[in-house]
């Protein structure tokens, strides 16, 4: 199994009482609440943490994209990946991901990814995301066109990376007379592509297509839901496309905290973990799911199950649902090996800093996890996986 360290780069100096006046820290939470001096400290601290992970032997370090919010301070993950590309030597740098479809010119991001891939000698993983619903408010992009723009932007970018240029790209949303990206990416045929998702049948069907076989990464979900979606990846490959999915096509992202004992772990991270879900990720339904962001079918399923990932979380509820993994090295190691046995993910992306978790605890978490948990995870492979049973798949 490959083990990655994922950083969201939250604005840790968030006014924790913001809900007196605002519904969330997205879209219209005033940017006067951002202090650039504190931001300077945070960006440099967070880059230090990512670089430390590279030194500690994590297989990869991950950054991602969010706009106009305090949850994640990377409107351009490319800036962070660039900063990391010359400060790390061996690990993968995963942009999980870039929202190509939020751009009128996805080629600019395609060029930037290619540059990072060439600079790092092929260490880039490119994530393709649509952005969350709130982004469609912030960036003025039509959510009803999100799916079509996403797939078309993907086609444009992959062709730009793989087809000899110049050529014309003749799409509905993107039409370019001269596609001729310099530089071409270092990896052949192109950097590995991941599709991070909060759980989407459409994304699974798209990413599993035999022409793509991309890595589907399930984020922030109760583990029974993670299991259903990851099994759905295997089922989709098997039943819809007639091939057996490789475990490399399957990833799970979870917030994780390790301390000396179970009790100490809960005591140290509890409040920060709760803030991640109750404050930073808090989003009213209308902002999370603008019209068309989900297909009518997915929206119907969502209403039916009344699923919610935000608000009212306690560290106990998060742990018992398996959304987060918290405990002593022994507990966390055993839990993750057991989860791998159930779900067989080829990659685990660990959110080891979250919300207001301070520098010292983050560093302790990174080091303890790397020393006491990670080696056992990196040593296991499909032989630990109990195997896929069709009946476990999501509805």
């Amino acid at each position, binding site marked *: 199994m490959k083990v990655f360290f994922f950083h969201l780069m939250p604005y840790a100096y968030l006014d924790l009482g913001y809900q007196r006046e605002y519904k969330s820290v997205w879209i219209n939470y005033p940017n006067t609440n951002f202090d650039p001096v504190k931001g300077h400290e945070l960006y440099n601290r967070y880059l230090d943490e990512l670089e430390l992970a590279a030194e500690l032997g994590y297989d990869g370090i991950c950054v991602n994209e969010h706009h106009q919010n305090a949850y994640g301070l990377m409107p351009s993950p490319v800036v962070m990946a660039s900063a990391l590309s010359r400060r790390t030597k061996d690990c993968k740098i995963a942009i999980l991901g870039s929202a190509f479809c939020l751009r009128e010119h996805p080629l600019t991001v395609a060029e930037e990814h290619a540059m990072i891939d060439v600079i790092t000698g092929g260490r880039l993983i490119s994530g393709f995301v649509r952005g969350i619903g709130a982004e469609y408010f912030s960036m*003025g992009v039509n959510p*009803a066109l999100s799916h079509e723009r996403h797939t078309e932007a993907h086609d444009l970018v992959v062709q730009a990376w793989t087809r000899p240029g110049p050529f014309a790209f003749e799409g509905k949303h993107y039409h370019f007379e001269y596609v001729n990206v310099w530089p071409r990416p270092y990896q052949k045929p192109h950097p590995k592509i991941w599709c991070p998702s909060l759980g989407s049948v459409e994304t699974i069907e798209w990413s599993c297509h035999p022409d793509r076989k991309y890595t589907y990464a399930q984020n922030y979900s109760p583990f029974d839901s993670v299991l259903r979606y990851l099994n759905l990846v295997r089922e989709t490959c098997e039943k819809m496309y007639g091939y057996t999915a490789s475990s490399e096509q399957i990833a799970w992202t979870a917030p994780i905290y390790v301390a000396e004992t179970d009790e100490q772990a809960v005591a140290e991270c509890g409040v920060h973990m709760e803030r991640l879900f109750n404050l930073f990720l808090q989003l009213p339904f*209308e902002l999370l799911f*603008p*019209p*068309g962001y989900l297909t009518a079918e997915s*929206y119907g399923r969502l209403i039916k199950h009344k699923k919610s990932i935000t608000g009212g979380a306690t560290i106990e509820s998060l742990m018992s649902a398996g959304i987060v993994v918290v405990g002593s090295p022994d507990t966390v190691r055993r839990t993750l090996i057991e989860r791998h046995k159930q779900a067989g993910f080829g990659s685990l992306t660990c959110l080891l800093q979250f919300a207001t978790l301070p520098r010292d605890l983050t560093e302790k978490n990174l080091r303890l996890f790397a020393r006491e948990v990670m080696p056992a995870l990196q040593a296991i492979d499909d032989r630990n996986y109990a195997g896929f049973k069709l009946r476990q798949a999501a509805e």
Partner: protein
Amino acid sequence: MARAKKTSRAKPAKAKRAAPKAGAKKAVRRSAAPAKTRATSAKAAVQTFNQPKPSESTIEVLGSKIFIRRGGVGEPLLFLHGAGGIPMWLPVFDQLAKNYHVIVPDHPLFGRSDVPEWLDDISDMAYFYLDLLEKLDLRNVHLVGNSLGGWIALEIAVRSTARIKSLTLVSAAGIHVKGVPKADIFMMNPEETARALFVDDKLIQQMLAMQPTPEQMDTIYKNRIATAKLGWQPRLFNPKLHKWLHRINVPTHIVWGDSDKIIPPTYGDAFKKLISGSKLTVIPNCGHLPQIERTQPFVSAVSSFLAKAA
């Protein structure tokens, strides 16, 4: 340009209209002409439209099925609904149907109509309706549009008024007045929406008490996707539309609720300035849906204007 012919106000059994042209049988059938002057088949059809209850039907335009409710007799009055769609035949239609043949389609993309793959934006919607007018061979149409439907009506009218006799814009979207924001209907939750739509607390409470069935939820979401498709960016206006409003050459009536929190009444003043010779009626104690919230004053204002336009 076939301008509207000035005639006296239409009465259900005595409506005058120009002699039908060859190939315009549907127009004859749907006219308010006295049944005894028509052929037997037309008689039956007219009798159908004389029924007090509205009819529901589906027609095919450009390969898509369009759901239409209609009732009443008289000159055609095409009502173009807003973002929320039209869930049923409303009391206001009964009122208008006393004097007009009221036609209320679910726009393509909305309600019980199909979702045409080719329909991408407001321009496609306008041309679709020009095709629909031809398909039904409607002439001398009184075009009435509320909110998003007002925007569609404007987009139709700047392209062609050949089949349009008058234009009534009710809290219409379509333009932007700098510095005067509209409410962001996509950002509001159901309670905020109800409070923004109406002034009357009874109506607000009624809307909040509604418990949609799963089928109705599907339709609500379908309508929201359709509205987003047409009007997410820029929000519910066409930046070029204001440049072409001078092309509107039919009598135009602008109707606004004085307390409209979705599209502020300033927009009514702006439309009045942009559309030459237009008349503005402001309805007191009224929000964004005058046809629902203040049905009687709305019907009076609309009827008296249409009577003059006719």
